């Protein structure tokens, strides 16, 4: 595996997926997939629609149980753990279609994300003890800091669902950051965005990486992947297609064929006309 | 032995009421996905309508019975169109329909209470068939025969309708997915209205016959049938007509036997204990299909 510049080859990967498989009835979503993500890197996950990328993210984050294989996070096996356990161990995620909590303001969404640092027992909250109130205020402060980071401080008291799509995505990222994760899974974070918004997301991801966060990004935008990812894994039909640097993967003939079709097919189509 | 057989037949008769009511309630639950708290009041009002036909209009049983049944059906259509149709258009979930049905339960049951003067009324003797048949040494009131026969006829008819007719297929399609059904050439509005009518009429039939045999025409009649019919639907399997019928009759027999041989205080207990057990352990019931969940 090619390491990000500056890190040593010797350290074990933060995320180690080994021969993971998932079937839905007769449909194989993911099959014999192995990949690794180095600490402190930005990893890309590519592949045509239906390749199984989101399923893989769901398996890693614990939304779905896997059928076979292992997933190791910082050396600990997590493929059988429930999602909330995995979250408190340090993996956070966003969703392909933004899933914010209906009826809650932007600030409240992020405060919900800070659940893991709630800092007070139920009895303390129940009785309204000063310790509980202080903890709540601390959570609010931290949430505001996170909003600052994604540049949404002005919208803190607005209903999250009234924001633009790009802004909602950033709320979701801020919410995910609330869990103080070590690994952030982003599922198509720039879907539906224009060039400027996409670049903003890319810059955000880089600043997060510089702050010590490891990121795994499912991304279709080839330009973004080339510019912001240290390492790429390509999937197709639930299987591993290629892995390496962005340039290597994009130039890979199998990857090209998967996205654009191959020359033999192109000639057959031409012949039909 | 004779006592046992007599109670067995009693149980069948009561169970037939539960079964018939359950069939109506179950149709709405299984095909329209609605838990209708007001369904019992259709039965109460059907009984009240039949009683009024007999007492006020001096009509014979053979006319009063269908009047009650039709009243039940029409009331069901009315409630469906006022209460559930707006929700359907909005795409609401189960809670919304349940609460709205509770609103109608409040309205209809209280109106029924006012209609019967807060009392439990009885059908006057002679207004219904009172012949006493005999099965060997066992007395067999005509009403019991009629009730059991009605249950059998209704069960078979509904089964044929739902499983073996085009309308039945349309019903199931609409229950599954209204838009898809419409795309397939079904008129969902018509299907829903007719389904509601059938459901109300069936429960109405249970109400009239129940009101006569239990000598209890009041809003309590409907409430009692609702709870027992609901149990029959769950225990039998809510998407299988035969299951509901068998469970209803079975529960009736169990209740009568429990009351006779154990204690009358435990009579309802056996039904509700079975209901809870099935909900916890086997929600699809004895004959229901697995993996069928109402969104």
């Amino acid at each position: 595996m090619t390491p990000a510049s500056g890190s040593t080859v010797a350290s074990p990967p933060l995320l180690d997926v080994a021969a993971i498989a998932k079937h839905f009835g007769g449909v194989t979503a993911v099959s014999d997939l192995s990949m690794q993500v180095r600490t402190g890197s930005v990893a890309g996950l590519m592949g045509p629609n239906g390749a199984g990328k989101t399923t893989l993210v769901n398996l890693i984050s614990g939304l779905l149980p896997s059928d076979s294989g292992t997933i190791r996070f910082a050396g600990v096996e997590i493929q059988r753990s429930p999602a909330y356990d995995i979250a408190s161990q340090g993996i956070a995620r966003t969703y392909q279609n933004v899933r914010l909590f209906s009826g809650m303001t932007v600030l409240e969404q992020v405060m919900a994300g800070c659940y893991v640092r709630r800092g007070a027992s139920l009895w303390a909250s129940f009785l309204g003890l000063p310790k509980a109130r202080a903890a709540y205020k601390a959570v609010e402060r931290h949430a505001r800091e996170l909003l600052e980071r994604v540049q949404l401080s002005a919208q803190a008291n607005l209903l999250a669902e009234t924001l633009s799509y790009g802004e909602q995505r950033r709320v979701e990222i801020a919410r995910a950051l609330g869990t103080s994760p070590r690994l952030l899974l982003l599922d198509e974070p720039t879907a539906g965005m224009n060039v400027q918004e996409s670049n903003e997301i890319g810059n955000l991801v880089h600043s997060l990486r510089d702050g010590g966060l490891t990121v795994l990004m499912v991304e279709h935008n080839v330009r973004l992947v080339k510019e912001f990812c240290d390492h790429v894994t390509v999937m197709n039909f639930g299987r591993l297609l290629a892995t390496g640097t962005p340039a290597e993967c994009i130039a890979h003939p199998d990857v090209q064929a998967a996205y654009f079709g191959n020359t033999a097919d192109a000639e057959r189509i031409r012949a039909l006309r | 032995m004779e006592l046992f057989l007599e109670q067995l037949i009693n149980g069948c008769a009561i169970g037939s009421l539960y079964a018939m009511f359950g069939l109506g309630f179950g149709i709405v639950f299984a095909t329209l996905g609605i838990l209708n708290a007001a369904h019992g009041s259709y039965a109460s009002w059907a009984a009240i309508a039949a009683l009024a036909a007999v007492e006020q209009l001096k009509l014979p049983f053979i006319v009063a019975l269908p009047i009650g049944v039709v009243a039940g059906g029409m009331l069901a259509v009315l409630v469906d169109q006022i209460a559930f149709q707006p929700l359907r258009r909005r795409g609401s979930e189960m809670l919304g329909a349940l609460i709205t049905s509770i609103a109608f339960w409040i309205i209809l049951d209280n109106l029924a209470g006012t209609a019967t003067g807060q009392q439990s009324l009885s059908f006057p003797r002679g207004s219904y068939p009172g012949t006493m048949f005999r099965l060997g040494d066992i007395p067999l009131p005509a009403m019991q025969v009629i009730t059991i026969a009605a249950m059998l006829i209704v069960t078979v008819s509904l089964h044929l309708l739902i499983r073996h007719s085009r309308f039945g297929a349309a019903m199931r399609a609409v229950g599954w997915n209204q838009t898809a059904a419409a795309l397939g050439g079904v008129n969902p509005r018509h299907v829903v209205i007719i389904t509601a009518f059938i459901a109300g009429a069936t429960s109405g039939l249970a109400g009239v016959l129940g009101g006569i045999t239990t000598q209890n025409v009041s809003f309590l009649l409907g409430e009692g049938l609702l709870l027992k019919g609901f149990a029959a639907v769950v225990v039998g399997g809510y998407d299988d007509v035969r299951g509901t019928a068998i469970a209803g009759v079975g529960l009736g027999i169990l209740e009568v036997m429990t009351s006779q041989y154990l204690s009358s205080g435990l009579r309802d207990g056996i039904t509700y204990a079975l209901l809870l057990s099935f909900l916890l352990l086997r929600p699809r019931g004895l004959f229901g299909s697995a993996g069928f969940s109402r969104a």
Partner: protein
Amino acid sequence: MQALGDFWRAYQSTVAFAIVNAFFALSTYAVLSAGILSFATVTYAAMGGFVGARLVLQSGLDPMLLLPAAAGAGALLAYIVALIFLRLESHWMALASLALILITRVVVINVPSVTGGVNGLSLPVKLPLFVLAILLAVAIAVFYRLSVSWFGIASRAVREDPAVASSIGIAPRRIQTIAFVISGAVGGLGGMLLALVLQFLSPDTYFVNIAFTMIAAVVLGGSYHWIGAIIGAAVFTALPVIAQAIVPHFQEVANGIVLLLIMIFLPRGLIDPRAIRLRRAAHGASADAARGAARIVEGKP
């Protein structure tokens, strides 16, 4: 002065019932706010009511001292119910809670040593109205405190989207179990208060009636905020009394009609935080637009 005294005496019991109903509504709200529809409040109330009443009769102690026992009994029962019910899918859980109420009545009839069986239980002990009011104020304080705590936010997250809540570290079943216990404590307490207000308990005291009207009250008042539960309970209790003056014999129907109107026109209930926020945002936007327009008129950038 005499008229005022008469007026107060006449409506004292209405206020007392409204407070008791508020407890039942809060108990229903407690689980609904974590995404669970459950009618089991009635069972907790029966537990608190009969256990509390029996303790008062047996021990002769001041009922105030035994209120915590009623709440505790309800909470314990709710915890057991949670263990069994939280394994079920939400629809089946709602129906199972309905079945639970039905069985409760059967149990009540069949343990006359505790409940007086079919004949009921007489409780010649009273609780002054101001005590009821103070207890409600305490309950309100608790619900307020919980709503501005991590538990409040976590509950809303679990209610809106349990899968996403799980992915930010919230364990839905844990939150829901806590919600059940709160519901049990409040319901049990309400049950004992009802016993003290009615001063007589029968098997029909804690039955389907309460279950249906309480969920209806919560939805009417607004199922997204604890204030909604209290307002809904107040409306449901006061409305028939007011309606009696206008349309006697049909006063109970008024509740059904109001509920129907709310379900058709205001399905999220009278108090809807989301609608309030949307309106606030709209005002903010139009205020911004007005400011912007004013700047253009004045020639400012």
